[in-house]
């Protein structure tokens, strides 16, 4: 096995992208992903690639759009508020069928939120996020090692299907240090195949290429969207990646990705020590989602427990997969508080025994909110009062 080097997540990611042949990077500063552009600023120069500190995330993603259109492995990275701004470019990249890599080192939201890690951009990442009918391939690492090794996987999937790829990490992964070893030899960009659809630097010997996302003639756009959907179907069928632990004999199935999966592994050990049979499936691709496998596993357990740093965004996908056949529960930490193993262990027991402790249920909040509103009935503007 290759020797491990202690590396910070964001740096492992940046170096991993370089090794994967990325030769264009544009970005804008935002915590907790600043190490990525900082690393790229000198490393791209070293390998003869391009680095641009853009004037905004909007500009950065549009630089990415231009660079990706030339066929060079290109990437941008940001964190949640910045990724919101990038949606304009991401929908054009998707609509123009350009491979590229977008990294979101998520932080707490909405709005400015917090600078600590978060996982609340799940829906935005897996449903498209920008305007129109499209998807991005979303990879969710859960260790520094995966953070460093996923760029290559992301570029390869993205190029195979001409669908933008996203690495959905979080501020904890980005900031933490762990042993890193790359599981691939550095890619020589010159050895990659020349993309027949790419623009520049010369059309001699080929037809001119056009990169665009519009289709204004009757039926043109629909044909484009449907053609793309064929590739989505292949991705959903062939490219699902997940990891399972202790699922053989499980009574409770945890579903968790990224940093929440790390905490869930520790929780599983606590619960198993108490004799509770708990297993876990960790979606590594969030789109395509391992729905089929989750359905199979769910049919064999008594309860499914989702653990995520958002109020059930991933659980929507789990519920669609489980389809009401097994009760599903949620242990949620939103607002950039990290999942804690001991609390998840309590949630596991609650899910198994029909208790409420450490389980999040939106309906439970309605009663509380109703009471608070009743107390405030004499407030001067009670409709608008933020209680």
């Amino acid at each position, binding site marked *: 096995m290759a020797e491990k080097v202690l590396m910070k997540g964001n740096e492992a990611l940046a170096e991993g992208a370089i090794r994967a042949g990325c030769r264009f990077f544009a970005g804008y500063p935002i915590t907790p992903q600043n190490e990525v552009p900082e690393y790229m600023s000198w490393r791209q120069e070293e390998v003869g690639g*391009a680095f641009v500190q853009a004037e905004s995330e909007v*500009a950065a993603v549009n630089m990415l759009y231009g660079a990706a*259109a030339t066929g060079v492995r290109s990437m941008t990275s940001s964190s949640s508020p910045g990724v919101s701004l990038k949606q*304009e470019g991401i929908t054009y990249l998707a609509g123009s069928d350009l491979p590229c890599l977008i990294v979101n080192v998520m932080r707490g939201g909405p709005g400015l939120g917090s600078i600590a890690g978060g996982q609340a951009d799940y829906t935005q990442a897996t449903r498209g996020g920008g305007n129109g009918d499209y998807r991005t391939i979303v990879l969710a690492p859960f260790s520094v090692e995966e953070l460093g090794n996923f760029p290559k996987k992301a570029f390869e999937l993205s190029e195979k299907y001409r669908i933008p790829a996203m690495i959905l990490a979080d501020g904890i992964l980005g900031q933490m240090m762990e042993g890193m070893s790359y599981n691939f030899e550095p890619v020589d960009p010159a050895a990659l195949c020349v993309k027949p659809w790419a623009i*520049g630097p010369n059309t001699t010997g080929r037809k001119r290429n056009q990169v*665009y996302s519009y289709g204004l003639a009757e039926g043109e756009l629909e044909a484009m969207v449907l053609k793309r959907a064929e590739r989505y179907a292949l991705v959903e069928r062939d490219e699902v990646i997940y990891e399972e632990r202790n699922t053989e004999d499980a009574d409770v199935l945890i579903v968790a990705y990224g940093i929440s999966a790390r905490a869930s592994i520790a929780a599983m050990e606590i619960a198993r020590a108490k004799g509770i049979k708990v297993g876990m499936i960790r979606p590594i691709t969030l789109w395509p989602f391992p729905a089929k496998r989750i359905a199979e596993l769910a049919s064999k357990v008594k309860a499914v427990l989702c653990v995520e740093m958002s109020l059930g965004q991933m659980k929507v996908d789990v519920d669609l997969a489980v389809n009401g056949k097994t009760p599903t529960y949620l242990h949620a930490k939103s607002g950039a508080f990290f999942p804690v193993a001991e609390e998840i262990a309590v949630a596991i027991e609650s899910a198994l025994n029909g208790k409420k402790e450490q389980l999040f249920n939106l309906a439970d909040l309605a009663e509380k909110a109703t009471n608070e509103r009743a107390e405030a009935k004499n407030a001067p503007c009670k409709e608008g009062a933020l209680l």
Partner: protein
Amino acid sequence: MNAITKRPESLLDVTMHYCPGCGHSVAHRLIAETMDELKIRERTVVVAPVGCAVFADKYFNCDSIQGPHGRGPAIATGIKRAKPDSIVFSYQGDGDLASIGMAEIVHAAARGENITVIFINNAIYGMTGGQMAPTTLVGQTATTAPKGRNPLLQGFPMNISEMLSKLESPRYIERVSVDSAPNVIKAKKAIKKAFENQVNKIGFSFVEVLSICPTNWGVTPLKGLDFLREKMMPQYPLGVFKDEKESVAQKIQEGK
């Protein structure tokens, strides 16, 4: 009989959708002639905007990319940095460049990207139906300024060439017009220079083209030309705002 003129090879033989009299088509022709004359057609990438020129990618006989509203200079930056041997030009209207895309043009200029920008100033939003642009003249009516642009509510028109010329990096900035034969010849010279500068690695070059939009101004093309000369030119004087002979790299090397 000898043909004294022909369609430039860089301009495809397809029907353009521009209105009769529109300045866009003249600007297209001048760019295409330039591409032919400089023999750069095979190396050129056109970045088409959002606006009436959205289909520029269907008209120029070269590689193309059509991008989000106003982001042309960022897209051009990405292409040029990824493939420095490409000749990249961003073609933009005044809503595209001076309103939604203001940050992208200013920063591409400030970085001194070695690209060419052709900026069509027709003092109005053409494609969406005659709304006010940052370049709309004081008193000029628009569908979103039915009583005319009022400086108290909407401020004064923005003179982009003058603004950009205050930056250090841009090498060449000129405002031209396509209202008459002599001015078209001057416009051609400017456009050619803006491409030559890129070929010779001199740096960021920008040509603002005063142009007419008879459709949304609600006038005939001829009346439109009068409006351009009488009303636009006093606000937007023609001329060279910046013309540096050396690239920024050359200047720094010489310690200037």
